[in-house]
């Protein structure tokens, strides 16, 4: 009999080919013959219960059917024990009777000839049932058996890994997850599994593996719904890596962590998306088994994501902690700039976070590491103000002092050290701080103070770790103060107490130097000879000793031996200062002995052997000088131009310009006039220019724009030497128009920029200045760029920008050529910014510098007068008056300042109530007709009658008044 099919198709759980009709029919057929309910009826009823979603009722019936079947009762056609067991296991699982479900699943395994697919499904049920009874270890074994199933492999691996993790079998769990991730499709389950694997690796201490999986996951972020969990894992991984000293790895992990607000926003967005997906499925009228599964999974994932989100929301210190970790790891990885940004942010935006104190200290370190010395001092000040008693205070000040030392700002260095030693006298760094302070004072030439510090140190720490250094420094301080005898005593004592001491070679050298200073050349030479005999050739001071020995030999009038000693000195390592000294002394000796060729040979060899050494320029200079002195200017030019041509095409060789200037001065020098012969007519500029071209441009260099520009630069210098400023500016203008800034070396860029500024073309000049600091920031001419840009900023009235530029000219570029301009620029900028005290200090620095005496002094004095005048007290007015008078009495050459000073002087007298003196000053002003061109002249003309009207009554004897000059316009 063929039974009709069930109208709804076979149940997913009970795939029995029976229909209710057939069942009823069978019932009727057998009723009355058997007292028990026929199996077919029970089967039909079970199916009815299942269809009606009454699984609890169904399982009772199914259990009974199975018992009867196992007792040997025949099953209705189409119903097998295998299918019954499968359905029963499934249904028991559904009503959460996991023990029974597992029992049935295991029973199914024993049914002979059971199909592979049914077996796999049964094992999955068994495994899950075991897991849900927390029999994880057994579940693991069961899931492992299903790994071969094509249908269930991924799930078996996933649940197997989860069970293993729960069973504490971490290696098994990791292995299982790895196999799953390697083969299964990359979906959201895959991402969840990867997250779990990262966690397991972290728990197992497999940091590298955790990092690998996490970075893999980062590449598949779109699949991760639990982004909050991912972030928490990244933080945990970063911490683990940081603890293991892998700061690079930690940094990579922390950099992947999102800030709290962004993370919460992102997680909420993903949760909304999950909820939306969920609602789409739950709203379905007839969800399939697949849909139902999806609903369950989405629910679980949403629950996990919400839980993670809740955790993140509770972590109020999350961002501050993240900032600190990031900053710390950046710092450790050399990212001092990034660290500084993060510490600044932490300090500004998380004032109550526990990381504040560390952040302040970190900030000092970061700025010091980045060599941002201007910021280090500010950061230390802020730190000390915020945490006056911080245990990191001495360290911060020590770092700041070190930074200031690197910046060669010994004044600031001393301030930090003094603050540290005064404020934290008992700190662990006390010894180091005191010794550094003594060194700093020594560097500042404050030898007596240095000595006081080291003496104090020796008293406080008689067996301190730096006691040897302290004693030696004390001796050196005495030596530097000219107390040679006291110093010698101390050096001798030092040599006695520390025969193997660090400073013994230097101490013996100092004794020889002391003898030389006392003009005991014989003793000095003997001590040097002994030194040279006692120490091996690799002793680093050897070259210096040879040099001193040579000096002593010169003192003994043994020039020949001295030359040999200097030559020996050259074969050892010498500092650039010492090298320059020895080369210059040798040159002097050769010249005094008229051994010109020897001197030229020495410099030529030097230039050939050390072509990249900065003294190659000295070589060219001396060769040129010596040959010119010998009356061989052509030879001089030939040799110097040879060296010049070597580098003339390379704009980065900024020192070539010094040679170009030498060439220009040799060419521009008028020829010697022989006695009795008439002075020859001056050579036309063009002839000299052609000569310059010949020397600089050859076949190799002629077509090169940098070389061409340099040739023009020599022409400009020649014009300048011949006092032809117009021609000079014309040529520099030609360079500006013909060559792009990137073709020019920094020295020419600076000169061209300055010429353009003089021609009032600041916008054009700006390009040249900018090129210097962009392309040649390390050039010796970099200060041209910063100063030029500072002056342009001043023209625009931007005091802050100007100050930054001028500061950079000094702090960054070292202000080799433009220190005066940079200093006066800083003063002007401070004045513009209204910071009168700062401006005053700088103007005083300019006014007090003898080497800068000239127009800068006049300007500085005038402005000092202006600052005093602005304070308007009688005492300040008197000071102002003194400044103005110094300008017009001592700096008459600088008309613009003299005119201003006269006018202000008169006004100041007037303010002081000294009207007669004011009038006298005006009259004196008018005695200099050359000042008529300045605007102050007209103002003085207007002021004069006002003063005259208020001048006290004339005495009995009339005094002849100087005539009032006619205004310039009449």
């Amino acid at each position: 009999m063929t039974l009709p099919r069930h109208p709804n198709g076979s149940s997913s759980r009970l795939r029995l080919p029976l229909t209710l009709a057939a069942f009823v029919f069978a019932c009727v057929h057998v009723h009355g013959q058997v007292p028990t309910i026929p199996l077919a009826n029970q089967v039909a009823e079970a199916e009815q219960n299942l269809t009606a979603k009454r699984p609890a009722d169904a399982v009772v019936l199914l259990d009974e059917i199975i018992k009867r079947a196992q007792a040997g009762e025949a099953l209705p056609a189409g119903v097998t024990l295998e299918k019954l067991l499968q359905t029963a296991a499934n249904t028991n699982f559904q009503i959460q009777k996991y023990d029974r479900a597992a029992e049935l699943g295991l029973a199914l395994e024993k049914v002979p000839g059971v199909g592979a697919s049914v077996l796999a499904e049964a094992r999955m049920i068994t495994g899950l049932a075991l897991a849900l009874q927390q029999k994880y270890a057994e579940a693991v074994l069961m899931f492992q058996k299903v790994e071969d199933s094509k249908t269930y492999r991924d799930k078996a691996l996933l649940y197997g890994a989860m069970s293993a993790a729960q069973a504490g079998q971490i290696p098994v769990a990791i292995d299982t997850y790895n196999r799953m991730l390697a083969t299964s499709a990359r979906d959201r389950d895959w991402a969840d599994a990867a997250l779990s694997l990262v966690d397991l690796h972290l728990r197992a201490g497999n940091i590298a593996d955790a990092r690998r999986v996490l970075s893999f996951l980062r590449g598949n972020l779109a699949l991760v719904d639990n982004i909050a969990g991912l972030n928490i894992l990244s933080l945990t991984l970063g911490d683990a890596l940081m603890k293991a000293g892998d700061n690079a790895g930690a940094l990579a992990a922390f950099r992947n962590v999102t800030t709290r607000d962004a993370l919460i926003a992102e997680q909420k967005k993903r949760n909304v998306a999950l909820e939306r997906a969920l609602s789409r499925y739950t709203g379905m009228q007839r969800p399939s088994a697949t849909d139902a599964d999806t609903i369950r999974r989405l629910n679980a994932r949403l629950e996990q994501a919400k839980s993670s989100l809740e955790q993140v929301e509770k972590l109020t210190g999350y961002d501050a902690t993240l900032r600190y970790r990031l900053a710390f790891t950046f710092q450790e990885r050399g990212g001092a700039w990034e660290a500084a940004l993060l510490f600044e942010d932490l300090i500004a935006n998380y004032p109550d976070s526990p990381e504040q104190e560390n952040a302040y200290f970190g900030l000092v370190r970061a700025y010091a590491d980045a060599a941002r010395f201007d910021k280090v001092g500010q950061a230390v000040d802020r730190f000390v103000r915020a945490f006056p008693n911080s245990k990191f205070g001495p360290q911060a000040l020590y770092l700041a002092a070190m930074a200031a030392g690197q910046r060669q700002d010994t004044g600031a260095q001393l301030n930090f050290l003094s603050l540290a030693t005064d404020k934290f006298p008992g700190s662990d760094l006390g010894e180091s701080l005191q010794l550094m302070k003594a060194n700093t004072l020594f560097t500042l030439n404050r030898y007596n103070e240095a000595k006081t510090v080291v003496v104090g140190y020796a008293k406080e720490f008689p067996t301190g770790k730096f006691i040897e250094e302290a004693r030696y420094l004390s001796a050196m301080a005495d030596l530097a103060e000219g107390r040679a005898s006291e110093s010698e005593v101390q050096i001798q004592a030092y040599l006695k107490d520390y025969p193997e001491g660090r400073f013994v070679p230097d101490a013996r050298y100092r004794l020889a130097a002391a003898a030389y200073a006392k003009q005991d050349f014989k003793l000095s030479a003997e001590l040097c000879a002994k030194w040279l005999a006692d120490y091996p050739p690799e002793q680093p001071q050897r070259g210096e000793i040879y040099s001193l020995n040579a000096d002593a030999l010169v003192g003994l009038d043994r020039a020949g031996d001295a030359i040999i000693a200097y030559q020996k000195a050259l074969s050892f390592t010498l500092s650039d200062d010492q090298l320059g000294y020895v080369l210059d002394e040798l040159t002097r000796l050769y010249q005094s002995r008229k051994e010109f060729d020897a001197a030229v040979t020495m410099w030529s060899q030097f230039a050939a052997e050390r072509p990249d050494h900065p003294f190659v320029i000295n070589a060219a200079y001396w060769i040129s000088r010596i040959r010119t002195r010998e009356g061989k200017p052509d030879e001089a030019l030939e040799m110097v131009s040879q060296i010049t041509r070597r580098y003339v095409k390379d704009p980065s060789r900024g020192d070539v310009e010094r040679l170009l200037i030498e060439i220009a001065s040799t060419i521009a020098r008028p020829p010697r006039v022989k006695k009795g012969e008439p002075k020859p007519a001056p050579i036309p500029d063009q002839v000299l220019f052609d000569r310059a071209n010949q020397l600089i441009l050859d076949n190799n260099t002629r077509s090169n724009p940098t070389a061409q520009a340099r040739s023009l630069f020599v022409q400009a210098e020649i014009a300048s030497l011949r006092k032809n400023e117009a021609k000079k500016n014309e040529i520099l203008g030609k360079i500006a128009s013909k060559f792009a800034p990137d073709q020019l070396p920094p020295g020419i860029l600076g000169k061209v920029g300055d010429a353009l500024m003089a021609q009032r073309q600041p916008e054009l000049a700006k390009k040249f200045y900018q090129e210097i600091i962009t392309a040649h920031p390390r050039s010796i001419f970099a200060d041209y760029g910063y100063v030029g840009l500072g002056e342009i900023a001043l023209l625009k009235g931007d005091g802050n920008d100007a100050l930054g530029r001028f500061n950079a000219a000094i702090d960054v570029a070292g202000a080799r050529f433009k220190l005066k301009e940079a200093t006066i620029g800083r003063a002007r900028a401070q004045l513009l910014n209204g910071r009168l005290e700062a401006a005053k200090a700088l103007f005083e620095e300019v006014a007090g510098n003898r080497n800068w005496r000239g127009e800068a002094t006049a300007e500085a004095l005038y402005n000092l007068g202006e600052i005093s005048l602005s304070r308007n007290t009688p005492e300040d007015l008197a000071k102002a008056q003194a400044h103005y008078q110094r300008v017009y009495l001592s700096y008459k050459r600088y008309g613009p300042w003299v005119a201003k000073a006269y006018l202000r002087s008169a006004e100041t007298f007037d303010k002081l109530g000294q009207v007669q003196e004011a009038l006298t000053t005006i009259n004196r002003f008018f005695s200099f007709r050359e000042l008529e061109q300045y605007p102050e002249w007209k103002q003085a003309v207007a002021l004069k009658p006002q003063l005259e009207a208020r001048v006290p009554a004339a005495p009995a004897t009339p005094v002849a008044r100087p005539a009032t000059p006619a205004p310039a316009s009449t």
Partner: protein
Amino acid sequence: MSPRRPYLFAFGPLTWLFAVLALAPAAHAQRYILKNGNPLNAADVTLASGFLVQQIPSPGGGSVEKRFPLADIARLDFPEPEALDTADDLVAAGKGDEALQLLLPIYRQFAPFAKLPGSYWARAAELRLKALLLGTDGPAITSAARELMQSGQGSDIVGTAKLALAQLDARAGKESLANIMIEEILREATPSVQARAWLLRGDLAAKRAAHAEALEAYLRIPAFFGTIDELMPAALLGAARAYKGYGDRGRAERSAMELIDNYPTTLQAAQVKKEFNL
């Protein structure tokens, strides 16, 4: 911080685990979903002014026209055009014209439905703006930016538009104007737009040879926006140049090497190789 482990599966209410069938991806139709829930296949309708028009064959031959006002459409159910990702890659590679060719049809197709859920207009318009920015057509850029700002498409899109205007100001040498816009972006925009604003600020400072300022702008990307990987090459290139300008050759080369090692196929990596002879 010692979080619980919320990201782990738990074996609590896991009855759901049993069902193991995977979701098969549904074939993606191109449909307009009307407010009454009825779908309209895109292939069955054409777009007229304010309407979708469907031709319904009439029994006696010919056809009857049925109109669906655009206002009746609730959402779009279209697959994301692959050309959008391709255009995104082209923009990243600096090929603006090629990207525009791909983008314009999408931009036009979705324009009438710009604000509807499921519309790809916003992404197309944003990419179009980025592609335009690679060129020099100032008026087109301004117009595209203004259109996005008025589109009400959210802070990210509006931020991108404002940033484009700031870039235009920067190009025109109006740094102070650009800075006003940048300040606004930094106050209001989403992190990804803020990060791009910092890049622009870095560029402006670099142009003035204010190297420290440029560094502080560029390095904000790795420091504060480390998860926005696509901006890292530009930040690293900017930082390498600024370090060089500042005189820190070591850090300059390290930034350059980081760029070459981690983003070897980018335009910026090629540029830094050239500039640093690496």
